[in-house]
């Protein structure tokens, strides 16, 4: 693959990472705040207490500001599959395109139609219709998350498909396997619940600021109660789905799992390094070995996490790269050879078909199918297999910081809920400051989650089937570089504007009751 333009691949990856990370700065707040606002409005409709309407409208304004920029960044992502990953679009478009289209038809229209009622319908539609609209916005935004996460999960665990050699692409054979694959379901629930946690932290943090300023005390306390209960429930689901994620990963993406845990040598009763510091080992002969300079371990926990069995064997980076006969693990060298056979057999099959030689075509097809599980490795024939190992420190640290922050949020929800219920929160300035400063931490945790998921699976665009070097579009790297910087400037400018607008809306606080009642 000496003919691969790596700067093109790298810039295309960088551009996708940039847009995805910017997009995910805004999405989680949309996903969670839409429900929080719906809970609050439900309270308003149930009690007819105008205070709940003020509360709802305040958070709704922040929702609107955040929503707009989320939409802006999301558009690019959808089309980038075509603009920057054209081979990918053909190779798996038969499966991957469907969730994107369904997302548009089923979710985006729901969201965009009822968001107009939500913002402009206060004085025009009945209370009940307005409430239903608010709920439909929440459902619509979360439905859109479902479809895009099904698509993402499918890249990590390609289920329900078969390669069609005549068309040189993968085709869907079972829609339900794509939709209800365990990886997809787990990913959906894990991602949306983490979004609910972020939104809860956001609401609690902003409310804490009002309490610190001795403003809008009732508003702040009511908001805190809704958000901390929501955050706590979501946190419980996160733990369950996080556990599911680990098992899925160990099963379907063992290299990502090994990298995330910095497990170099596989073992039974594998321990989990709860905390660890890595020292980069510069010995070239050892593949991606990262020694610990410090670690705190829990024995056998990794085996339990991965296979629910303390005695289970968990393969390490070395086993996956160099193979392990005892555990029937092929080395990457062997897999690249098999992948190459698969690719060459496909070419043979097509040529034989063209010349009408059916017997050669059948032999080639059998050889192709026997080796298809390794297809993507073929693109690394004659290359350093090291390239098939993801960035270990980045995934290792990202995972630990994400989990650590997750536990911090659970503690925060619990403490702040109890203190607010006992009406003691106003005096606990340290807790209030902690809540306020937890807002950026929630964003960091969210982004780190995606870093684990996406950096950890490199170089695979489709696990084991298609690496990024064979998925890219044929464009001059300079063009991609230019669009990268264009997006960087536009998104950064808009992000700064968004933060400034958000801050001034927060400082302004909820509309005074008299103003609001005028339009009630």
């Amino acid at each position, binding site marked *: 693959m000496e003919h691969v*333009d790596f700067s093109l691949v790298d810039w295309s990856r960088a551009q996708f990472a940039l847009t995805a990370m910017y997009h995910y700065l805004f999405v989680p707040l949309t996903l969670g705040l839409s429900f929080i606002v719906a809970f609050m409005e439900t309270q308003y409709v149930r009690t007819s207490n105008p205070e709940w309407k003020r509360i709802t409208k305040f958070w709704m304004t922040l929702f*609107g*500001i955040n*929503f*707009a920029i989320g939409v*802006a960044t*999301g*558009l*690019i992502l*959808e*089309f980038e*599959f*075509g603009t920057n990953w*054209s*081979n990918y*679009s*053909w*190779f798996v*478009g038969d499966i991957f*395109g*469907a969730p*994107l*289209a*369904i997302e*548009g*038809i*089923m979710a*985006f*229209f*729901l969201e*965009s*139609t*009822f968001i*107009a*009622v939500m913002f402009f*319908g206060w004085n*025009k*539609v009945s209370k009940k*219709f307005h409430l239903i*609209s608010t709920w439909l916005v929440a459902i619509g935004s979360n439905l859109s998350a479902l479809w895009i996460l099904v698509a993402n999960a499918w890249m990590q665990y390609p289920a329900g498909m078969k390669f*069609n050699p005549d*068309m040189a*692409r993968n*085709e*869907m054979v079972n*829609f339900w396997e794509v939709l209800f694959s365990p990886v997809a379901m787990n990913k959906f629930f894990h991602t949306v619940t983490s979004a609910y946690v972020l939104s809860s932290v956001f609401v609690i943090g902003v409310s804490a600021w009002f309490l610190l300023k001795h403003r809008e005390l009732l508003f702040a306390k009511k908001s805190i109660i809704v958000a901390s209960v929501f955050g706590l429930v979501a946190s419980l689901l996160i733990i369950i789905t996080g556990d599911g994620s680990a098992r899925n990963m160990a099963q379907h993406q063992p290299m990502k799992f090994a990298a995330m845990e910095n497990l170099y040598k596989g073992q039974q009763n594998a321990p989990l390094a709860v905390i660890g510091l890595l020292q980069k080992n510069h010995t070239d002969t050892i593949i991606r070995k990262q020694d610990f300079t410090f670690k705190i371990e829990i024995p056998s926990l990794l085996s339990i996490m991965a296979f629910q069995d303390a005695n289970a064997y968990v393969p390490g980076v070395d086993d996956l790269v160099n193979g392990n006969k005892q555990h029937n693990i092929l080395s990457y060298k062997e897999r690249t050879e098999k992948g190459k056979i698969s*690719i060459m057999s496909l070419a043979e099959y*097509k040529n034989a078909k063209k010349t009408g030689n059916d017997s050669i075509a059948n032999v080639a097809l059998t050889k192709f199918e026997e080796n298809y599980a390794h297809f993507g490795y073929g693109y690394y024939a004659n290359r350093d297999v090291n390239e098939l190992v993801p960035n270990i420190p980045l995934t290792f640290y990202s995972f630990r910081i994400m989990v650590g922050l997750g536990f911090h949020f659970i503690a925060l929800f619990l403490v702040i809920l109890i203190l607010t219920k006992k009406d003691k929160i106003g005096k606990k300035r340290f807790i209030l400051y902690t809540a306020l400063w937890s807002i950026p931490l929630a964003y960091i945790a969210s982004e780190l989650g995606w870093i684990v998921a996406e950096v950890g699976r490199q170089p695979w665009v489709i696990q084991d089937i298609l690496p990024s070097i064979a998925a890219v*579009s*044929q*464009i001059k790297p300079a063009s991609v570089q230019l*669009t990268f910087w*264009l997006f960087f400037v*536009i998104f950064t*400018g808009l992000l700064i*504007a968004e933060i400034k*607008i958000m*801050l*001034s809306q927060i400082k302004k606080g909820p509309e005074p009751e008299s103003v609001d009642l005028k*339009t009630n």
Partner: protein
Amino acid sequence: MFETFQYIALQQYWWIIVSLLGAILVFLMFVQGGQTLIYTLGKSEDERTILVNLLGRKWEITFTTLVTFGGAFFASFPLFYSTSFGGAYWVWMLILIAFVVQAVSYEFRKKPNNLFGHRFYEILLFINGLLGTILIGTAVATFFTGSQFSVDKMNLTLLTGNKMPIISEWTGLAYGLEAALNLQNLALGLTVFFLARVLALLYFMNRVNNTEIMERIKKQLLYNAIPFVIFFLTFTVWLLLSNGFAINPTTKEVFVEPYKYLHNLIAMPIVAVLFVVGVALVLLGIIRPITCFVKCHTKGIWATGIGTILTVFSLFLLAGFNNTAYYPSTFDLQSSLTIENSSSSYYTLTIMSYVSLLVPFVIAYIWYAWRSIDNKKIDIEEIKTETHIY
């Protein structure tokens, strides 16, 4: 139900859906057209706020239709998605950027402390209106005029040599921007631009309750309708007289056929009727308010809107039906995309066809929701009492 369809029937069904989405998108681009008229029609801050808010309640539907159009094209004709988006990179990127800057502009425009000031966001809305319409029109025109690319699925097996293992390769000079140098493409781009402005004027006419703005709308309607008609006629006459890209139904070979699109129109009388009725409705909606003397007709948006959908729909059908390559390659004719060689598998199209049954339901709730919040015309009073304004 759809399982009983033949593969070609499903491919045609999906071409119809994509065409319909494209047609609805062009109609909904009245939002873009309106964005280029904010300063022409609104002479005071209050007047501009009325106009921006009228558009602001609709922009998301246009945006969502664009996203769904892209998603539906991807799901049903993935080879188009990979070839056109990955090749005509700069055209699509500029279109995308034009829409990215639109998405925040309504929400941010009037918010305090918005970093750049309200003028900046109005300029972004103008850019979206100008570039979005012209470039989408230009890109769609290449469905008839062709682009320079090659497609070879076997490139996937290239493990050595000079070429990367990439299926679709763009050979046009400027990654799609070269399309804007073709006058026929540009004519369609400008048609869409002026049509969007005409549609916006008719929309405003139907929704604004302000005499000064109404006077300006009437004047502008004429100024924009004339170039629209000129560019539209130029493109249409050119199209009907030009060569097209036909497919031999037996060998599936693509070849150049003189007057192909005229032949298509004759061969598909239903499409011809749709086209003629569409154009008539477009003109009817424009002419009635222009020629009024005393009490003016303000419902032109309906005739012109429906007419736009029918006309654009029939143009898409002309491009893809009757053995025509809908995305022709002038570099390598046999690389041209047809609804048969670029579509998804039978299974995927079947599944997606079931999903498409949701579309009428979606249209129904959009209709219901809009009716419920658009029950009266907008004036300055309403804007002043509204708690959420753009």
